[in-house]
């Protein structure tokens, strides 16, 4: 059986990739996928920890996160599509109207 540390390591790697992608990429769609990546990295840690501790709550939490993530994707994608239609770009650097 694969030791739990490996799962944790994988999750950490996924989260790091997601976070770096979030910070470095400019395409809103890609950043969005990075957010999903981070979410799922967290999901992975929850399931792994649940398994080790023999506790089903880990998996229950993941279901909640999946549902919330699905809803968030719907809204987020709609916003991105709307922005793209208006500006014909999805680069977040262009979207700095809230600059102080």
């Amino acid at each position, binding site marked *: 059986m694969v030791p739990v540390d490996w799962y944790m390591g994988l999750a950490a790697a996924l989260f790091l990739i997601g976070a770096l992608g*979030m*910070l470095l990429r400019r395409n809103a769609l890609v950043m969005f996928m990075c957010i999903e990546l981070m979410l799922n990295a967290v999901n992975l840690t929850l399931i792994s920890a649940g398994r080790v501790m023999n506790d089903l709550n880990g998996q229950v939490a993941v279901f909640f996160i999946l549902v919330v993530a699905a809803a968030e994707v719907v809204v987020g994608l709609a916003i991105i599509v709307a922005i793209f239609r208006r500006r014909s770009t999805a680069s*977040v*650097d262009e979207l*700095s109207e809230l*600059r*102080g």
Partner: protein
Amino acid sequence: MTDLLWLVIALPLAGAVSLHFFGRYLKEPLSGWLASAAIGAAFVIAAVAAVPFFQGGEEASTIALWEWMPAIGASLELLWDPLAALMTLVVTGVGTLIHIFAIGYMHGDDRFPRFFTNLNLFAASMLTLVLAGNYAMLFLGWELVGLCSYLLVGFWFTRPTAAAAAKKAFVVNRIGDVGFMVGLMLVFATFGTLSFSGIFERAGDELTGGLATAIGLLILVGAAGKSAQIPLYVWLPDAMEGPTPVSALIHAATMVTAGVYVIARSAPIYEFTPFASTIVASVGALTAIWAASIALAQRDIKKVLAYSTISQLGFMFLAVGATAYVAGIFHLMTHAFFKALLFLGAGSVIHAMGDEQDMHKMGGLLRKTPITAITMGVGALALAGIPPLAGFWSKDEILAADFARGGWFYFLWVIGLVTALLTAFYITRLWVLVFLGEPRWDEDAHPHESPRVMTLPLIALAVLSVVGGLVNTPFRLALEHFLEPSFELVSVQHATDDVVMLVILAGLSTLAALAGAGAGWLAYNRPPQRWRRFEDSFEPLWGTWEAAYGVDDLYGRVLVAPGMKLADVSAFNVDAGIVDGAVNGVGRLVRNVGEWTRPLQTGFVRNYGVLFLGGALVVVVWLVAGG
């Protein structure tokens, strides 16, 4: 009939309201007649309701109209007793005549209906004051007549002097009102109610000497403001800027007598404080002689009458201060007749002369305006106190009562006697200067007798000035018996019963009146240069009198200027500097903090992401490190 008594207030009020909204469609003179009809009807109702009092034996009754503030004994309730009845009849009776006179006097004014709106509103307010069954409602009327006085003095507000006079009247009255209000609070703190019946019946149980004195003096402060007594009399001469019917109605016959009425109404409180009563009488006597001396030297016909009114109000205070309440109210009534007559006569003269008020530019009007001249002559004789006219009986009763009280009041009696002499002199001077001698008019003056709508009220008031005094003569004390139920809780000061003494006193005051009138006649029924020299021979006293002792200047320097300075500092230093500074300072602080933190918001998602991640890491480290 007392069921309909509320109409006495409601009718003039309804007149005011309807004229306010529809007056401009009624125009002239219909709106004036409507206003006159409203107050005339109020007079009829009051007269019918007062019949039981004339028949005698009728108890005072309280008519509750509406529960206003029952917790402090302040409901809208009417107290219908002989005193209220007499005041109501004077206000509505003289008021009706003045309303009718004003139809002629205000002819051609742009805002004719508005004048009658205010006049009717004043009548309703004054009736609220005199019919009130408790101090709260009385105070309501008290303030409303002050408002109406402001509106009517400033009726020709486009003249800066009229606007200033209205403001002055209001502000000076406010000073008195503060004292009155504190007095009422003290009354409430003592008795737990403001209702007349609740207070007066328990006055003996609740009042200590000091408390009664405090209340009495505070009521005097209010009364001195409203009734133009020293030191608050300065507004009344200025109030002559109002149209003359206003001067007659408000500043001679009704509103200014409210102070006398309030003191007479509060007699059961003064019963326990001879000291406050003595102060009232002393203020009255001082005001009487002070204002009479100023009236001697005035050139403006209305100013003479204004100072005369102050002086006569002083007489009324002298009476109520000597607890001769009946004499005071009696003089209030006769004064309402003859002073309203004199003011309306002056209005008729001013009307005839084309808005000229300087007596030096009149003269010889007897032939041009005979009715005005004769009726004013009657009013002058009544004011001077020549028997058997109205003023003689009431003034003589006041002086006799003061004499009978003795002690300090002997001195006040002497002052009153001297004032009677001065009064006869200045009113004779006025009449002679206006109606006798050679005309001294301007070229373009074309004097003419006033229309009948103005002369008929003059004639009616002249008749009242002749016979009005007969209601209370030593031979037949009808008014005294009439007012008895209103003063059954107090001991009223009477003149002596000794017939010889009474005749001597009457003879003395008649002598004073005749001497004053004779001196006035001899001094002024001469060519102008002669009486001008006569006046000059009194310099510098005459100039001091003409300048009214410079009291206005003194008040201006001692009170008004520091007050203005204080307002100036408050407005431009304290308010603009400190208050606004604090408010602006808070705003500037917030703005600066915002200025300083706004670069944090770069608008780049990445920066927010880094901060977010960094924050999350800090939290994680803190948790892991076992925080």
